[in-house]
């Protein structure tokens, strides 16, 4: 502004001042929005990547599991026990008075309808996350014939329900469905 005559009187009035401040506030606000937008990818990059998500469900072939046998499968980098219960084990599980249990659930509630012999649970003790014994041949199954966690002595029965020891809950049953008679999809 070379001389006073060129000054627009509106700029000196109250309205003008507010309008002029507005552009500064707007510029700073838009800058703030930009910073927030730039933060989004920096935060989002820590979420599971596409290759990890692609393995969030797994299919297990159960045709080779004989009655009374169990296998350990891997799902989301954790063990899953797939167990083909014998008639005696099913009877044992059904015999129990559910009301007396720490985490009351029946075997029916823990298995798919019509596939009561297929007990599919996480191999992760609900106490502190150890892998219980009892899924592989020759491992200790504990006094209730299910699973036994060697870390702190939690004992699970043939429906993988907590019966004794420090664990608060039954072994978790992951979401699963039978896509055919021999294939079960977990997750």
């Amino acid at each position, binding site marked *: 502004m070379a001389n006073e005559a060129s000054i627009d009187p509106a700029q000196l009035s109250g309205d003008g001042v507010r309008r*002029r401040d507005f552009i*500064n506030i*707007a510029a*700073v606000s838009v*800058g703030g929005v*930009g910073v927030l937008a730039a933060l989004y990818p920096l935060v989002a990059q820590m979420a599971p990547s596409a290759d990890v998500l*692609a393995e969030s469900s797994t299919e297990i072939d159960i045709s080779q599991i004989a009655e009374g046998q169990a296998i350990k499968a891997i799902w989301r980098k954790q063990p899953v026990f797939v167990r083909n219960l014998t008639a005696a084990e099913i009877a044992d599980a059904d015999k129990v008075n559910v009301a007396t249990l720490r985490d009351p659930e029946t075997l029916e509630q823990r298995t798919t309808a019509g596939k009561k012999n297929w007990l599919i649970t996480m191999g992760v003790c609900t106490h502190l996350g150890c892998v219980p014994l009892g899924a592989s041949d020759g491992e200790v199954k504990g006094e209730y014939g299910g699973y036994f966690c060697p870390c702190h002595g939690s004992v699970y029965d043939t429906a993988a329900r907590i019966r004794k020891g420090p664990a608060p809950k039954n072994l978790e049953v992951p979401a699963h469905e039978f896509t055919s008679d021999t294939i079960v999809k977990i997750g």
Partner: protein
Amino acid sequence: MVRLFGPLVGLFFAVALFWSFGNGAYVAMTEEVPETAEEMFHKHPEEVAFSFDSAMGTFDKRQLQRGFQVYKEVCANCHSLKHVTFRDLAAIGYNEAEVKAIAKQWPSKAQTFDPKTGDRGERTNLPSDPFPAVYYAGQGVPPDLSLITKARHGGPQYVRSLLAGYAEQEGYKNEQGIELLKKFPDAKTPDGLYFNPYFANLNLAMPAPLVSDGQVTYSDGTSASVKQMSTDVSAFLAWTAEPKLDKRKQTGWAVLGFLLFATVLAYFAKRNVWSNVH
């Protein structure tokens, strides 16, 4: 001190450089650099327009699917695509069931190793698997194609020109009409190599992979000329090298739009702040 020694050091380097320059100039004047077949006959990639060339351009999914078909039926016999997974194919328009089927039917299988028993074996590919590695017994390992268009000057244009550019060396002439074997009789392609003017040293180990029109039958009815197949598979390989291209440009426009707005605003804010100073 600095003003004394500085100029001396400067002159030292200048003289040493002049020595190299003088020697080099003498050699350049007295010795003739022989012409080489590579220099005279190597061709730059043909200009081919792809849908994804411009800043606005995106991949043409139909073309990528055709290109994938060419890869699957021709290239995949020798070349792997190890950075790409079957699930990635969803991005070029295959649905979940199709991806599963492609993975299942893929001729080379995923390798397995049981650390308990030490057994090595095979299993069917899953959508989460990468395209299995291809070993070509006794022939070495042909280059992996995942990144080929980013790993070569000229990118997809180069790949396309190379695939469609095999020529008969006998009687081959360059644009100036000079015949290769007359000018350089020693440049004859050795046995086991194949002549291609788009390849840097004119001879490569890969025989022409796309040899006849209709080698691949496109399901969308596009006529499969050698040029068409070469173009399609080059586009597919551009996608395997840069699968995030569409998203990148899309994000780019949003970012640029925002930045332009913010910068204009910042300019007026700056003028506003400075208005009482000058």
